[in-house]
Structures are given as C-alpha cells and as structure tokens.
C-alpha cells in the first residue's frame, strides 16, 4: 500500500518532470478528479491511474463519488454512494427542436466515478 507521503511523491515526481504536466495538475479541479485525468497527467495506464486513486481513497486522501449520466452524457445527479441512487432522475430530450423533460430509470443509465481530494489534506 502506498503511504500518503509516497503518493504525493509520485505526483510531485511527475510534476517536476515536465512543465506541461505541471500545467495539467494546476488546472485540475481537486473536487472532480476522473481516472482519465490522472492517467493523462501521469501518462500511464488506466489501471495504474485507478490503483493510485483507490489507494488514495483507502488512505483517506480521496473520497469516491458517483455521477449518474443521462443518455446524452449530461450529469443528472451526483451521489456519495451507489446505494443512494433513486429509481428515476430527470433528463432532457430534444423533440422536434424543443427540449422536453423526461424521467429516466437510473438502472438504464451510465454511472461515472470520480474522486475528491479531502479538503483537510489539500
């Protein structure tokens, strides 16, 4: 398991590696960290990026949250726990050039995980 010190060292090692990466990290919203952001930042595989995020969760540095996506990809709802997902959410659908509200069953919708840096460690 990574210690918090080592976790930040990995990040900072890459930070000092290139100015481009520094720019990426500084632009990252620490309250909306997707695995793909970490992967692109570190230039690593998705699997390693996910392991780093999950290690950070186990060590209390990150918390994981879940977004429920409407069929068009818009986020309908963000929850702390998949168990808290309601049966339906409201999305919007374009019909004949007009937007109409539509209830979608959440069991049919994609779920996207993201991570937040716990503020006390920020």
């Amino acid at each position, binding site marked *: 398991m990574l210690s918090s010190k080592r976790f930040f060292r990995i990040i900072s090692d890459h930070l000092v590696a290139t100015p481009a990466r520094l720019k*990426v990290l500084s632009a*990252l*919203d620490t*309250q*909306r960290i*997707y*695995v*793909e*952001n970490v*992967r*692109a*930042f570190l230039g690593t*595989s*998705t699997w390693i990026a996910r392991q780093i995020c999950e290690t950070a969760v186990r060590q209390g540095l990150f918390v994981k949250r879940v977004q429920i*996506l409407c*069929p068009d*990809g*818009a*986020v309908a709802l963000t929850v702390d726990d998949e168990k808290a997902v309601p049966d339906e959410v409201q999305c919007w659908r374009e019909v004949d050039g007009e937007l109409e509200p539509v209830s979608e069953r959440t*069991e*049919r*919708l*994609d*779920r*996207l995980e993201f991570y937040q840096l716990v503020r006390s460690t920020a």
Partner: protein
Amino acid sequence: MARLEHATVEQLRRLLEFFPAPKLKSEWPGLKGQKKEDACEIIARTGDHARIGTFLMANFAHCRQHVLLLSRQNMQSDPLAALPPSDALGQPHGGVSYHLASVPYSVYLLDPVEEVQVNVLWPIKIEQQDEITLLRTFVLERDPNNYSGRPLLKAVRNFDEKKLASDLVNLGLPGLDINKGVKFLWDMKAVDAPRVRYKESESTYTVDMDDGKGLRDTKPEAYVEIVKKPLLNTNFRPQEDPEDPEKTQKIFQANPTFGRLGFTSYSDDPGDTDAVIKAILQNN
C-alpha cells in the same frame, strides 16, 4: 443451432437483411441483379440453414454492429446471461464463439387491428482475450421488416438494449476504459473527430465541427486540452486515404469511458472493424 434450424422463412429473411447485398450476392452468385429484399427471400426459401450459419460467421465483420469491450472482473461471468435467450452457432477458434439470440417484438398491424409477436434472430459474437471480453451484436432496427402486406401501426422491442450495460456491470463485466487506446489512434492521425463529447470538471461539453472537419487538425489548441479529459460519445472518421476515397465516410462512434464502439456503416473489408478494435486494445 436449434434457433437457426427451426427458423421460419420470415426469420431467415430478416436475419439475411442484416448483411450487405454484395456479400449475399457473392455467396449466392445466382442472385446477381436481384433487389436485396428479393435476394434475401430466395436464400431464405432454400432452407439451407448450415450454409446460412457459415455465411453469418464468415461475414459478421461486414455488418453494422455495436461492440462492448468489457473488463472481466469476474472471470466466471458469462455475458450471455444479460442477453435474450440464445443458441451457440459455432466456435471457429479459441476464445471466439458465435451465438444466435431471439429478440421479441410486439408488432401492431392495421386492417384489422392485430397484435403479432415477431422474434428477430440476432447474431452475437463473443471474444475472450485474457482479462477482456468483446461482445459484438448487430445494430437492431427500430421496427422489424413488415412482410404482412398490411399497414404497420407500430412495433415495440421487448428487449431493452439500454439496460444491457448495467446488467453486465451487475454480472462483474463493466465497460473497459479505452480512453488511452482511442486517443492513441487520434494522436497518431489514424482518425480525426468531427464530433466530440467530453467531461469537464463541472460540465459536459460537445464540440460539433463545421463541415465535418476534424477537431485535431482544425483546432489543435483545443485538442491538446480535450485529450486530458474523459471522452464520451464521440464520432471518429478514418484519415483520408487517396487510394480509398470512401474511407472517410466510414464514421464510427466511440464512448471510450464506457468501452463502447459503434460501427454503423457496412464494412467492405472485414479487417476494418477488427483493425480498429485491435489497434485500440494494443495501445490501451
């Protein structure tokens, strides 16, 4: 193969209509000059189920298809459990198997009003590669072809394809994140994207390029920022090829964050679909 062996002429017609006409006429050369719908009926009436089954497996890659790339978190999981009932068609080589499912539709006809149940035969290809499963299915039409000669009021498909992804997640087969592999092809200029959807920090953005231009070549500053974000439904177009002017028409859709690809054009070269999937996985 029970579903194929016991298929009615109508079911075989609908099954054959999934395939591009040139491939049908190449396998059954006597049908040159026939319209596709007539050619499908003539082949269906031959009742040569074995030949149709062999043709299906050999020409799967030419058809319009959805591909789900799944991460095998549970190695024992069978993706067929999330699909309508099916029979095995064949297993040509290790790790690859073909299946034929029945998708039920309720069809409402007029003159007189009548509800009819129609089962459309739906080919499925499953490929197991170490910790990845590739699940390929043909693109289903909204309405099954109406051969009744009566007006069609509406048809309702009694299989919710949208729920398939969450059912697979529950089986321990979530979508594989292929952002890295897709972005590799984009970066290598094998493809460019006329439509990009991606996730920003607190919003979701769509970029529709004018005149079908590619985002990477037209807006390189935006491109370098977007490739750091998770991609959602994005349309990709193969790079121009002077030897194949029609290649750029073969747009495919990718939702890399959820491991989905959609090839909604017929493919002349069976390698087109396979080559894209292979290149993505090799660089993911």
